[in-house]
């Protein structure tokens, strides 16, 4: 269905939440190793896009297609999409009281390894890689013993998301406003975590309101999402332009040029 060198291919996607159309004809192709930033005003459908792609309950696809590495994403259960290599870093990570971070991480990694036909890691092996991942995002090892996100600060929660990403080694990472609520230091830690995971096989969609995150995570492409579709695409310099001029000038432009890379 798509170019074989495309990791994620979204074609004319329309999706709704509670019968309200949010995504209205989204087109996007992402090749392995690319970093795409999605920017845009509130309510444009940025978070919805992540939920639709990951298959969240209540997000209905009305038409169009989305495939990951040639596989039809929209046909899969949430957990199968994850096992196929789709990772969503949440804007507001939820707490799971009493379930230790370590257990949660091991169960996740085991489930994905099992799906790939790999043997699960022993507890000792896993503990070693988990400790390493903690270091990478600057979280004390003691966080492995705490309940998932239980009593974590905003910044700790975001770093915990990146730790999960490091351990799960996904093909496509969608970072949903991972910078929201972070101070500069915390944002730098998060960005370093992300950058350490960049490779020629792994792609990223970085959803953000602000250009400043893109100073740390340099995107290959920047897209503006407005009213459920991409209204403008460009390179990193587009983000700077948006920072200076805001989004208003885009919304007044009615024309919908094909602005793909």
């Amino acid at each position, binding site marked *: 269905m798509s170019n074989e060198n495309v990791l994620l291919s979204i074609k004319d996607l329309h999706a709704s939440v509670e019968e309200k159309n949010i995504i209205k004809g989204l087109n996007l192709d992402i090749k392995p190793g690319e970093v795409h930033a999605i920017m845009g005003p509130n309510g444009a459908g940025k978070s919805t896009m992540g939920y639709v792609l*990951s298959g*969240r*309950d*209540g997000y209905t696809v009305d038409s169009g297609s989305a495939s990951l590495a040639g596989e039809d994403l929209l046909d899969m*259960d*949430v*957990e199968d*999409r*994850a*096992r196929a290599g789709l*990772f*969503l870093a*949440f804007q507001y*990570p*939820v707490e*799971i*009281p*009493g*379930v230790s971070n370590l*257990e*949660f991480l091991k*169960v*996740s990694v085991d*489930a*994905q390894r099992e*799906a790939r036909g790999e043997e699960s890691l022993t507890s000792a092996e896993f503990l070693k890689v988990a400790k390493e991942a903690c270091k990478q995002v600057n979280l004390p090892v003691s966080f492995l013993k705490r*309940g*998932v996100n239980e009593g974590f600060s905003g910044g700790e929660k975001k770093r915990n998301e990146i730790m*999960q990403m490091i351990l*799960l080694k996904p093909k496509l990472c969608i970072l949903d406003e991972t910078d929201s609520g972070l101070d500069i230091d915390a944002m730098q830690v998060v960005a370093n975590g992300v950058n350490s995971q960049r490779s020629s096989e792994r792609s990223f969609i970085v959803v953000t309101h602000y250009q400043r995150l893109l100073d740390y995570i340099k995107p290959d492409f920047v897209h503006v999402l407005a009213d459920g579709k991409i209204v403008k695409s460009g390179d990193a310099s587009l983000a700077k332009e948006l920072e200076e001029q805001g989004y208003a000038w885009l919304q007044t432009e009615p024309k919908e040029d094909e602005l793909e890379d």
Partner: protein
Amino acid sequence: MTEQIDKALAREYEAGFVSAVESETFEPGLNEDVIRRISEVKGEPEWMLEWRLKAFRVWQEMEEPNWAHVDYEKVDFQAISYYSAPKSMKDKPKSLDEVDPELLRTYEKLGIPLVEQQMLAGVAVDAVFDSVSVVTTFREKLEEAGVIFCPISEAVHKYPELLKKYLGSVVPTKDNFFAALNCAVFTDGSFVYIPKGVRCPMELSTYFRINEQNTGQFERTLIIADEGSHVSYLEGCTAPQRDENQLHAAVVELVALDDAEIKYSTVQNWYPGDEEGKGGIYNFVTKRGICHTNAKISWTQVETGSSVTWKYPSCVLKGDNSIGEFYSVALTRGRQQADTGTKMIHIGKNTKSTIISKGISAGKSNNSYRGLVRMNPGAQGARNFTQCDSLLIGDQCGAHTFPYVESRNPSAIVEHEATTSKVSDDQMFLCQQRGIDPEKAVSMIVNGFCKEVFKELPMEFAVEAGKLLEISLEGSVG
């Protein structure tokens, strides 16, 4: 999502098989003659029979209670049989070699091998099958330490003085309808005596199995921890899968003398009935312990089975500085109903009690916590802390809390905390987005919710309880 959760909760009841054992079973019905016959097959002394008959007369004057938040078809006490025992047990096998292999196989299938080489190291087991104890393991080893662990029917003969002194001393005959019935018709259960200053060298456990159809099981357990002694005891229970309801009406009495400590854990997995609420065990149980000076009793229960549960393991904190604890996980699904909790009666000075109750409701079930904390006038400086948490799975189940607090001493402190939460869509989505099956996700979330209670279980059983919960939750996710 709810639909998924329900699906994940619909489970297979693994202990639902029936053993092909030829039994001697009394005709259904209850009257003084039946009680005489029970006493006769057990070869009981006259005083025991008299005690039973007295209880029977008390019971006849009583009415079945209906204050619990449960709704069920009342038991026809004339329609059930009050005694059933494998025929092979009649000759009183002297050793395991003489026990019917089918009985041994039953316990093996349930994961309780009775052959000592295969057993969990450090756990002695009394295996009760319908109305009789099949075997009690590690008795010699326990005797070396002076610990008595035997079927209560044997204790009636061997230790009459202890029985006369303590049987019915914590739960009096007229305590309640089901306790009185139990006093009249109890068949077997365990008897434990830990001598002064002895720390019981092993975990003790009793495994109750109902096998025969149309019978009631009336278990009676008495544990006496003499001054300064210590014991940890665990009971487990299962029954075959049947369309008819069966009655289990037990009485458990614990006596912790000065400075003694008893830890009593239950993993209850009676057949819960099917999705529509057909069949299952009525679990109407009275459990109570008395603490003398500086003594401590700790109840831990994991309740996943039974169609109807009515159970309040309690502590009478009579001695100064004594401590009572209650840790409970009660899971209901399908059409199960549970009304469970505890009573902490503070009589002595500086007595302390802790109640941690975790109720999980799924499907169309109803789960109630009912607890009483009473501070008597003499309970100077007494303290209680209660925490009741309810977790709802889906939107068709119910969670209820009925806490009663009576304080007659102004220096006593009573604290009560309660929360109700749901397995949220956000939590489920997070787990699934990380690649975890919905079923595994629910069981992990529920296990996390129960952690505070599981850590109170003896280690070997904490793992069991976790697994049991996992099986119970299978199919409850949507």
